[in-house]
């Protein structure tokens, strides 16, 4: 989705409900065919390494949704606190948890309860007790100011957030000075007109 703020005609509440429903279905029924490409094959196509995916439980990987590989331009360091905006089923979050090690923290934020529960279960299976999942929104992150070393997000800010400026401002707020933002997202070569972007189904299916 291009366009940095929501078009006036977009029903934000309907969009939120639609996104929650779409991602809940993927979390609950990952083996079904969905409109959105997902799963291990997608992760491999996007360039995730075998070593990265080896540490991710099947429950998380089968529901993985993403637009690219956020670690293509950097990684978290040992001891870092990482926050994953829209962590979904937890693939990127668990990869980050292994990067930061036992002295770091990996905090996932998602507004889809089914995806959040999948991520929690995946962290338990992976025995990563530095992982914490919080329910929340990209534009109102449940994290203190300047409390995070690295913010990651995959297929969330440019692709799904109607107000990208607000989401980026929140990422900036929670990052410590010198902290890094590692995004992976979808971009379009041909801009969508506002009347097209205002169609909720286009964002959710």
């Amino acid at each position, binding site marked *: 989705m291009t366009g940095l703020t929501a078009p006036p005609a977009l029903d934000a509440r309907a969009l939120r409900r639609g996104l929650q429903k779409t991602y809940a279905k993927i979390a609950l029924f990952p083996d079904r065919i969905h409109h959105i490409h997902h799963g291990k094959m997608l992760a491999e196509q996007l360039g995730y390494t075998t070593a990265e995916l080896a540490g991710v439980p099947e429950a998380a990987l089968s529901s993985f949704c993403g637009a690219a590989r956020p670690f293509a331009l950097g990684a978290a360091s040992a001891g870092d606190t990482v926050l994953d905006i829209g962590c979904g089923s937890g693939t990127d979050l668990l990869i980050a948890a292994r990067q930061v090690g036992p002295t770091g923290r990996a905090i996932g934020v998602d507004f889809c309860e089914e995806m959040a529960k999948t991520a929690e279960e995946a962290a338990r299976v992976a025995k990563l007790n530095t992982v914490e999942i919080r329910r929340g929104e990209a534009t109102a992150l449940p994290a203190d100011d300047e409390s995070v070393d690295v913010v990651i997000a995959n297929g969330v800010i440019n692709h799904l957030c109607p107000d990208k400026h607000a989401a980026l401002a929140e990422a900036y707020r929670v990052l410590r000075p*010198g902290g890094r933002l590692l995004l992976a997202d979808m971009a379009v070569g041909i801009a969508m007109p506002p009347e097209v972007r205002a169609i909720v189904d286009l964002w959710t299916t």
Partner: protein
Amino acid sequence: MAELTETMRQVGFVDVCTGIPVDVLAGAKGEPPARQFEPVGIAVAARKGASGGER
């Protein structure tokens, strides 16, 4: 993506850089209608200035 990276700079991020585009649609059920907008997946990295206000 230029629009997003420009907004990142407006928010205060520095050292904004982008990675190599990848095909994000291959095999997706929603590929045919989406393909007309030429979507790609891309990594973007940036940093919050050391002072917190560096632009």
